[in-house]
């Protein structure tokens, strides 16, 4: 009897996940070894002119590797825990997400050492956040015993999110420092939390719950002119969604959080499409968006500034007028410096610790993509975007396989958060879209974003586990 259960345990063990974790561990250790050597190289190249030869004494001590080894061990613990508690959960998400946040930790360590950021504890703090995030992910998995709980209290979740953000923003308005980059944070002693990160999850839960309950009604319009049905959703069912959407958009636009407003609107459009299956809603939504965007552009000067940075022509910098040069030193400094960093990376990159990402303002959070591009090059960026694509693929696959409309919409909506967020900030960094300050999922420095992302991963894992259990008739 004991032998049978032991062999069943071995068969149930998440070997695929363990196998997929090996290369991420090698990558993280490799980068952690490279960082101090690169540091030494940079310090020597400035003082002496002759070539420095490599000796094994340059290899870092084991204790400099401790932080990343801690992450590796925690990922292994999560692997073992999942095998015993949720053996059927998706096996590819954890390695993908673990590698991404590991690279995020290494990049934060590296940027903390650069003089312009000047915060040697940046990497340690990011590491702590990732570890807290992994624990929160496990807590999410355990506490979502009943998914109906999320669905039933949908209005509570949505209102909770709105109130949290409203309080923070009210605070920011009171002290009137809308221009400071931290105006959307809630301070609990030493912790700076950004409730807006949680709001995006609450909004998706609300949309998924509401749309799944009205899935039949939403796809049929009830407003007619003669025999022609207007292609808009039925107003009575659309009302609550429009209210939530309007409230969150007003909150973000009121305090100039263009990126988050864009994210929420993108989630709204994709979930309306997923819920109703009607592309016409998306087209209408985009039309409304362009009209509103145009009005916003005419009304607010800060929107105009963001667009002016997009129209700047960096390639022909020799032809710049004095006015453009001034602009590139003030309003468009981030974009221009970011593009210079990306181009200096080339195809293979400068190598971790060997570039100069410190010239880009706020490089550790909003502009992390340019730092990655400078040090890992185009090849590295393609690899990282490939990992994003695989995370999205797994997320949407979990959504397709889920058993009921609520879980499907929830999984797809949560995955869309990653997709839209990465799209907005990468396009912003590369001057395709106006730059807006939202974090790059898993890679940017920032505790709230890491924890919110791990909550999403936890929900996705739970949905995939539930689906597999139901399919085998065990639930």
């Amino acid at each position, binding site marked *: 009897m004991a032998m049978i259960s032991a062999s069943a345990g071995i068969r149930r063990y998440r070997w695929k996940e363990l196998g997929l974790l090996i290369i991420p561990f090698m990558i993280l250790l490799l980068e952690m070894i490279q960082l101090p050597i690169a540091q030494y190289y940079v310090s020597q190249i400035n003082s002496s002119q002759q070539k420095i030869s490599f000796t094994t004494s340059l290899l870092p001590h084991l204790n400099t590797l401790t932080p990343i080894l801690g992450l590796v061990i925690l990922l292994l613990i999560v692997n073992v825990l999942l095998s015993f508690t949720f053996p059927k959960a998706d096996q590819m998400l954890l390695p993908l997400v673990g590698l991404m946040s590991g690279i995020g930790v290494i990049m934060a360590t590296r940027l903390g050492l650069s003089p312009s950021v000047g915060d040697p504890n940046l990497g340690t703090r990011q590491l702590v956040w990732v570890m807290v995030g992994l624990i929160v992910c496990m807590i999410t998995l355990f506490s979502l015993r009943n998914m*109906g709980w999320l669905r039933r209290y949908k209005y509570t979740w949505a209102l909770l999110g709105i109130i949290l953000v409203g309080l923070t923003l009210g605070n920011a308005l009171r002290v009137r420092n809308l221009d400071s980059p931290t105006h959307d944070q809630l301070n609990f002693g030493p912790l700076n939390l950004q409730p807006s990160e949680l709001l995006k999850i609450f909004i998706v839960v609300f949309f998924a719950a509401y749309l799944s309950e009205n899935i039949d009604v939403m796809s049929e319009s009830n407003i007619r002119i003669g025999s022609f049905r207007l292609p808009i959703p039925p107003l009575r069912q659309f009302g609550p969604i429009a209210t939530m959407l309007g409230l969150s958009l007003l909150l973000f636009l009121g305090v100039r959080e263009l990126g988050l407003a864009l994210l929420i609107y993108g989630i709204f459009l994709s979930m309306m499409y997923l819920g109703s299956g009607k592309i016409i809603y998306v087209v209408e939504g985009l039309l409304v968006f362009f009209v509103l965007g145009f009005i916003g552009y005419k009304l607010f000067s800060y929107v105009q500034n963001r667009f002016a940075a997009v129209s700047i022509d960096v390639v022909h910098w020799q032809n710049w007028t004095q006015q453009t040069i001034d602009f590139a030193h003030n309003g468009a400094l981030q974009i221009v410096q970011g593009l210079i960093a990306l181009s200096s990376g080339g195809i293979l990159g400068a190598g971790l610790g*060997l570039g100069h990402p410190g010239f880009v303002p706020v490089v550790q959070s909003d502009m992390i993509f340019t730092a990655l591009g400078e040090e890992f090059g185009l090849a590295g960026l393609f690899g990282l975007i490939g990992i994003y694509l695989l995370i999205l693929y797994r997320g949407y696959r979990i959504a397709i396989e889920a058993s009921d409309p609520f879980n499907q919409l929830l999984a797809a909506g949560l995955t869309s958060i990653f997709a839209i967020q990465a799209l907005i900030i990468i396009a912003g960094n590369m001057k395709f879209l106006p730059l807006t300050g939202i974090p790059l999922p898993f890679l940017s420095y920032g505790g709230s974003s890491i924890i919110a992302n791990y909550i999403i991963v936890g929900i996705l894992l739970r949905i995939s586990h539930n689906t597999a259990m139901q399919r085998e008739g065990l639930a």
Partner: protein
Amino acid sequence: MTLDVFLLILRLLFIVLLYLFLMQVVIAILRDLRKTAANNADGFTGKAAPVVGHLIVVDSGPSSILPGTRFNLLPQTTIGRGPTCDIQLTDNFISGEHTRMWYRNGTWYVQDAGSTNGTYLNNQPAREPLPARFGDIVQVGFIRFKLAQ
């Protein structure tokens, strides 16, 4: 070996490992997809899932289904108006996917699948999974069935 050569090797190693990892995940995904495809093919060509119960129409409500009609129940059955449902009922008061029923450890479970007009087991709303015995009355929208062996 000079230090810059060593650093170049480390840099190339990083990129190689990154793409190896991507390849490994893609291979795992492909294997997964093949397995799913094989399972689906089995489902179509192999023998059909066993019938473990029946639903007999007791009261057809506003619909045109004749009372006494028998529907076969598979171990996992979905009821609704949509084309993907195992039991398709054309009635205006039935949602796209209305009710889910599944058979586990000798007991039937009934749960509403987020319908507009609700599912009831012996007049109890079945928002959560409810265990059903043979002879119980399952009401889908306004149509009433008896669960039979």
